[in-house]
């Protein structure tokens, strides 16, 4: 890869999100990740090609050390099976989580709150008559409970990045203690792990070591911290933020030509 920078007009916000996520996955070279469906599959495929070739991929439909030769579009895609070390079923795909083997989980979602709780179940209205019914838990709840850290990928919009999720699917730092539903720190329920990073279409957010509230760590070129404040549903701390290194021409080229040449994920 050459170090030539791409112009902002040469890529879309979705592509930026995927490229920065792939860069972030360089932290997990040689580590074991359980990857969720959607754009996390794309970013993982890109990371495996350029930043973390030794990352070990687990999938919730039972593949251990999956090595897809081309981008999967389904979580049980045949593309995930061919070349994997072991192919069983969903239970065997998920047990590495509850055995505490998984270093990081990587998921998308529809809503994330300031504690890193993620919602992929419903938005608005009531549980029994929602405004918008979504996919439900799939592996997202299990990743949030058991992975040593969780990486979350989602477009940055005011209604998505909110004060508190409409439904708590994936547990973040402040979770609900039942039967009352009292908000408590996850450690209080004997839960390990927790969200480590939220990569959006505008920047990268992390969680404060002390109060575990989301803050802005990096903003993407062409985006200002004020833009991010205006597109966040709570008063996000941007005081620690710096601009992210620009995207490379080669990163976009590989994403478009090698990873998703048919634009199956409609990123452009």
């Amino acid at each position, binding site marked *: 890869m050459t170090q030539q920078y791409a112009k902002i007009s040469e890529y879309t916000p979705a592509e930026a999100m995927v490229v920065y996520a792939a860069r972030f996955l360089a932290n997990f070279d040689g580590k074991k990740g359980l990857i969720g*469906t*959607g754009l996390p599959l794309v970013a993982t495929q890109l990371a495996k090609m350029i930043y973390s070739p030794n990352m070990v991929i687990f999938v*919730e*439909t*039972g*593949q251990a050390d999956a090595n897809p*030769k*081309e981008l999967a*579009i*389904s*979580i*049980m*895609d*045949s*593309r995930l*099976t*061919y070349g994997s070390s072991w*192919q*069983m*079923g*969903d*239970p*065997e795909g*998920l*047990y590495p*989580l*509850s055995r505490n083997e998984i270093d990081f989980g990587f998921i998308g979602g529809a809503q994330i709150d300031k504690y890193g709780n993620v919602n992929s*179940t419903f938005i608005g209205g009531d*549980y*029994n*008559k*929602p405004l*918008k*019914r*979504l*996919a*439900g*838990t*799939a*592996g997202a*709840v*299990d990743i949030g*409970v*058991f992975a040593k850290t969780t990486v979350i990928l989602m477009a940055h919009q005011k209604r998505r990045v909110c004060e508190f999720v409409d*439904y*708590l*699917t*994936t*547990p973040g730092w402040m979770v*609900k*203690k*039942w*039967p009352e*539903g009292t908000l408590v720190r996850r450690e209080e*329920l*004997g*839960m390990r792990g927790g969200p480590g990073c939220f990569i959006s279409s505008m920047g990268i957010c992390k969680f404060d070591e002390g109060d575990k509230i989301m803050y802005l760590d990096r903003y993407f070129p062409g985006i200002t911290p004020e833009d991010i404040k205006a597109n966040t549903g709570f008063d996000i701390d941007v005081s620690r933020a710096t601009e992210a290194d620009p995207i490379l021409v080669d990163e976009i080229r590989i994403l478009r030509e090698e990873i998703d*040449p*048919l634009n*199956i994920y409609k990123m452009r």
Partner: protein
Amino acid sequence: MSKVVSLQEAIQEVKDGDTLLFGGIVEDRRPVAAAIEIVRQRKKNLVLLGTCSQSGDILVGGGCVAAYRGCYTSNGAFGISPNIKRRAESGTIIIDDIGHLDVSIGLLALQAGVPFIASKTCIGTDILNPAYDNLSKVAEVAGNKEMLPNKKYVLMEDPFFDMGTVQLIPAIKLDVCICHVQMAGEEGTVRIDGSLAFDHYGALGANKVIVTAERIVPESYIRQEPNRNCIPCTSVDMVVEVPWGAHPGQVYNYYDMDIPFLQEYANSCSSQEGFDKWADTWIFGCKGHEDYLDKLGASRLEKLRALPPYGYVPRRKGGVK
């Protein structure tokens, strides 16, 4: 003893109000032909367990499902399963969400013949929210109430390893499990390639197991390598040969997904009228599965045929690099 029957005969054994698990996940290795036959036979008040994706969503559109209890209501890249989405948003279907490990562990308990297993699967989340607990409503519509547990979960402190609060997850009991697989012997021994999804759990514990297979082979052939088999004949009640039985989804080593068909389904079914029109073409407009295949046409299906050694259709001509 041969267990081979016709698809029509097999589906006649599914009773109104049954709790039902389909094999496969999302649009992969799903018993779509079986789902279509269930709609054709106008079954009612089924309780769909596990997931509601390509095959389950057809049942919802066809008015066969009163309640769903599971972990996934999406067709993956093709959007939220359109029929259950519409019914959920109009408040006309009972939904009880549980986690993916909950389904796995619930079916493990079923397979092992134990009442429950403890884990931390949904601690801290709204899955455990009593206000969203619809289990009793699910049990109300089920034909056999005893198939549903008395409670969604129980929390307790781990008495053995001090793991803190754990959740007791009850067995998921099945009246019927329907799997679509690559190969079955005529006595019911099953061989699956690719992900087993929950098939190998569900089939071992369900009261009635229907297997539809791309190919039925002599039982003696499939028994040459018993270690390669995934479900024993002793757990299977009926076997049906249904080539292309998971179309428009994938079957590893056999065919890839029919993307335009899946997109058309997603687009058509945003309204009930849209689904009904789709059903007029693909369900009621066909006498049976052979008719469905004739309507698709040989050339369309040939394009989907998987290429060895990959087990799917590589997107680039000449295979994958």
